[in-house]
């Protein structure tokens, strides 16, 4: 298995905070990899290091086989980035933006125009192609920003929250684009706040927390780490009162139900109990839980982080 992205012990400090404190990553070539993490976790910083925009303070990273610090030019020949904030030229039209990027990527004038028209069609911008981007809506700008990164099919594509601000149709369109890119051999490294997106799209998922990868694996592996099913107690209106993860054993399930039984809300009129499979949200919340507010109540008083780690 060749790795498209490999990072070992990446560190980055801004002022007095260690944003990245020894980050390790291994992304197989041709896969879709999703990096999750709460706001400010360092997702964008990670992408900036991997795309040669920011130098790490420590550690090494290789992208498409080249060191991002020692050989930035070689890395740049093999990557494309759509960052978190729009990177489009507002004075130019969408076509002019795409042709410019095409020319800068080594396409001839004709090829650049052909490719531009193709991408504009794919991203639903054909009608607005001749308008200055300054007049575009936020979502249209975002779509152009994504199209710009696809002007040539590079080996490794970085997308920082690509679907933020997109409507449902555009989001699904982008998902299918990403899948087909991966099928054609590109590696896609993306960050997202939509766990459903990571669940559906990514071959592997990593959760970034406190400067390190707190958990990594396929969606199923991550869900399995949280243990068994989640037991929920809901009130008469269907509102969630409390939810408890279980470790998947009969004993664990009984313990969880017993604990719910002790809660006064369980005896209220119309209260009912549900059992469901853990979602990626449960995984995310459990891993990134802060001491102050633990969103997922632990079984038998144990810390959900321990639960994950001892599994």
């Amino acid at each position, binding site marked *: 298995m060749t790795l498209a992205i490999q990072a070992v012990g990446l560190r980055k400090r801004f002022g007095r905070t260690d944003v990245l404190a020894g980050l390790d990553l291994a992304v197989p070539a041709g896969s879709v990899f999703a990096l999750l993490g709460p706001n400010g976790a360092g997702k964008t910083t990670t992408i900036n290091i991997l795309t040669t925009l920011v130098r790490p303070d420590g550690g090494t990273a290789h992208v498409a086989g080249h060191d991002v610090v020692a050989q930035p030019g070689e890395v*740049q020949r093999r990557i494309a980035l759509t960052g978190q904030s729009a990177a489009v030229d507002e004075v130019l039209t969408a076509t002019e933006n795409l042709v410019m990027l095409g020319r800068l*990527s080594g396409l001839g004038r004709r090829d650049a125009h052909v490719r531009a028209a193709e991408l504009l069609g794919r991203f639903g911008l054909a009608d607005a192609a001749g308008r200055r981007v300054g007049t575009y809506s936020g979502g249209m700008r975002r779509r152009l920003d994504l199209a710009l990164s696809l002007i040539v099919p590079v080996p490794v594509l970085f997308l920082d929250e690509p679907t933020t601000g997109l409507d449902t149709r555009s989001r699904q369109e982008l998902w299918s684009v990403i899948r*087909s890119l991966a099928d054609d051999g590109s590696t896609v490294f993306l960050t997202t706040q939509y766990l459903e997106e990571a669940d559906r799209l990514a071959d592997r998922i990593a959760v970034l927390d406190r400067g390190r990868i707190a958990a990594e694996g396929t969606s199923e592996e991550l869900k399995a780490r949280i243990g068994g099913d989640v037991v929920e107690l809901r009130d008469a209106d269907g509102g969630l009162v409390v939810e408890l993860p279980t470790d998947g054993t009969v004993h664990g399930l009984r313990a969880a139900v017993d604990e719910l039984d002790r809660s006064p809300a369980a005896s209220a009129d119309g209260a009912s109990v549900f059992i469901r499979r853990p979602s990626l949200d449960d995984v995310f919340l459990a891993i990134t839980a802060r001491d102050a507010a633990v969103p997922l109540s632990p079984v038998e008083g144990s810390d959900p982080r321990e639960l994950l780690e001892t599994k």
Partner: protein
Amino acid sequence: MTTFTTTTTTTRPRLGAVTAESTFVSRSFIHSVRDVEALLMAVVLPTMLMLMFTWIFGNAIDPSGGYVDYVVPGIILLCAGFGASSTAVSVSRDMTTGIIDRFRTMPIRSGAVLTGHVVASLVRNLVATAVVIAVALLVGFRPVATPLEWVAVLGVVALYILAITYLFAAIGLAASSPEAANGYGFILLFLPYVSSAFVPVETMPDWLRPIAEHQPITPVIETIRALLMDAPLGDSAWWAVGWCVAIIAISVGWGAWLFRRKAGRR
């Protein structure tokens, strides 16, 4: 659904000698042409200044009426300054919007973006200068230069525009925002007033005279004036060229350093 052709992945080629530069030059040209207001200002403001100096102050400064011949070289340089200061704003805008990050993640020589801005500014300013000279001729400017001297004037003006544009491009990199870049540009626009552009240096107060005599704009103006009006050239041409080359060298170096240092700052 439209078909989407991605074959296998490709590695971006190393670009030929001028592909990146010419792409950025045409980008900056489009920017210039679409910013009609800035284009208009670059021509209208110097023209108005010239009319003001020749018609309103002219008779007070030089009752013989020959002031227009004296002031035109200064106006030409002022015009170049106006045009160049918009370069600082364009460069700064590139730096503060995300577009620069896209260019920085591509295998492009770091100077190419700036080259685009500088070349577009050079052409813009030469056009504005031509318009200003044409207006000057209409209001009584009577140069006595030979064709060869005109070529020399063009060369000096182009070199000066190049120097000040590069300087403003670097200022655009250093500024924290397009607005700040605009402000710095405004400060530099005062330099011509403390030179021999509008009044002879001899008429200035004692403390100001050495500054006015030795600042870079004065030899440039004296050179243009000597060439156009057939006055003795002295050594001002050497000083003019020397200053311009020094400013270009420093600005290019400073600009390259700023460009690297600000990489990924956002």
